[in-house]
């Protein structure tokens, strides 16, 4: 379970402070997949980062019960001078999982082959994404944070992702940020619509999508 209490997030800009999230509270329950909808800059990805602990709220608290993934597909923490394999081993060490199992999964999922032993800086953006997705999915979490899943990769890769997400739904909870109504309606049980610093929660996904499209 993830509980957010009175979360405020402000960013300093040259014109003063921009309040992205203004006193929002919520509970994300296990087994209830939630979609985050909203216009660009509405605070969806910011909240996702706060759920994972990568960013802190200006005020308010996020309480996590159970394990939470990093935003799936996030390749920013890869060290370019290290090989894909070395990056993978680092993450496995941090999460105390057997790197051999993870490596098997990543190799099968990403089709990287021998490129796994090349420095990440030599990868194309597609290859980076494949490594990042594969690695995120290979480690088991209670909650998976997913930011714009359909943004990268070719058709085959997207198909693999969809297949893995469907599997994940059975044992974990997905929190999905997307602009794609189809993605939201196929994976989510509830939606949060972000607008003007507040969130509106919907148990009926279609109603949430209606509001989102009217923004």
């Amino acid at each position, binding site marked *: 379970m993830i509980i957010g209490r009175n979360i405020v997030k402000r*960013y*300093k*800009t040259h014109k003063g402070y*921009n309040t992205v999230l203004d006193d929002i509270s919520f509970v994300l329950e296990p087994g209830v997949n939630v979609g985050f909808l909203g216009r660009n800059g509405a605070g969806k990805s910011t909240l996702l*980062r706060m759920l*994972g*602990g*990568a*960013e*802190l*709220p*200006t005020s308010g608290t996020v309480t*996590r019960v159970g*394990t*939470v*993934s*990093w*935003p799936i597909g*996030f390749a*920013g*923490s890869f*060290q370019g*001078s*290290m090989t894909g394999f*070395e990056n993978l081993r*680092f*993450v496995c*060490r*941090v*999460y*105390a999982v057997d790197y051999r199992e993870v490596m098997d999964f990543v190799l099968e999922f990403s089709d990287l082959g021998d490129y796994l032993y090349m*420095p990440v800086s030599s990868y194309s953006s597609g290859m980076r994404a494949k490594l990042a997705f594969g690695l995120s999915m290979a480690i088991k979490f209670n909650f998976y944070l997913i930011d714009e899943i359909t943004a990268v990769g070719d058709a085959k890769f997207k198909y693999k992702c969809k297949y893995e997400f469907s599997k994940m739904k059975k044992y974990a909870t997905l929190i999905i940020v997307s602009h794609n109504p189809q993605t939201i309606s196929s994976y989510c049980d509830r939606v949060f619509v972000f607008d003007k610093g507040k969130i509106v929660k919907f148990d009926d996904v279609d109603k949430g999508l209606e509001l989102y499209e009217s923004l």
Partner: protein
Amino acid sequence: MVQIRVVYALMLRETKTVFGRSRFGYLWVVIQTAFNVVVIWVIREVVHSGNIPGLPLPVFLICGFTVWRIFSETVTKVMMSVEANSALLYFSKVRYFDLALARALLITATNLVVFILLMTIAYLLGYTYPILSLWPCLYSIAMLLLLGMGIGLICCAIRRYTESIGVLIAMIMRIGVFISGVMFSLSHLPPSMKFMIDWNPILQLVEYSRTSFSYSYSGGEFLRPDFVSFVVITTLLGGMALEVITRTKTDKL
């Protein structure tokens, strides 16, 4: 246990990033320290600045530089630790403090390796010294590591408001190396300047570390253990508190 594993993973990662992919990457750290020692050694031989009572000059310099580098590198690396590795905070097991600790421990380990290597080379070159007790040396290293972390964390917090602190620290470190007994023993200072020894915990620790390797070196008598402990604990706790308080300031658009 979780945090020990995370810090270990971070240290291994840092090894690869700091020393690069070059096979000689690690060797450069040895060369750099050795270079400092050799340059000052040659200068002192040329100007006949006098012997150090009770300690061969290279041993005096190797001790001074290694212990000083553990302190100064910890300050600068810990100052940048969160900013340089903030992407790693996406991994929920990695905490802010782990980033700083991993860097500080790696610096200490690296400099210890360099220290043992250079001391061995000095011995093989005929500069003999006894190893009396490693306690003064290890105590000094541990205290300077903690002090370096404390100051580094304070600077990390200040850097969230102004990046100029990095330049200021670089300047202070350049002066620090002269007033901390790294290259020259300050034991012959006139009494009017004695406050420089009394109020400089770094100097006291640098000098104390050398007594591990000499029967008669007088550097240990400056040490004020209560004062050093007070400064180290206050700085470390202050640094940790400031770093935590200023965390929400890290966000940039």
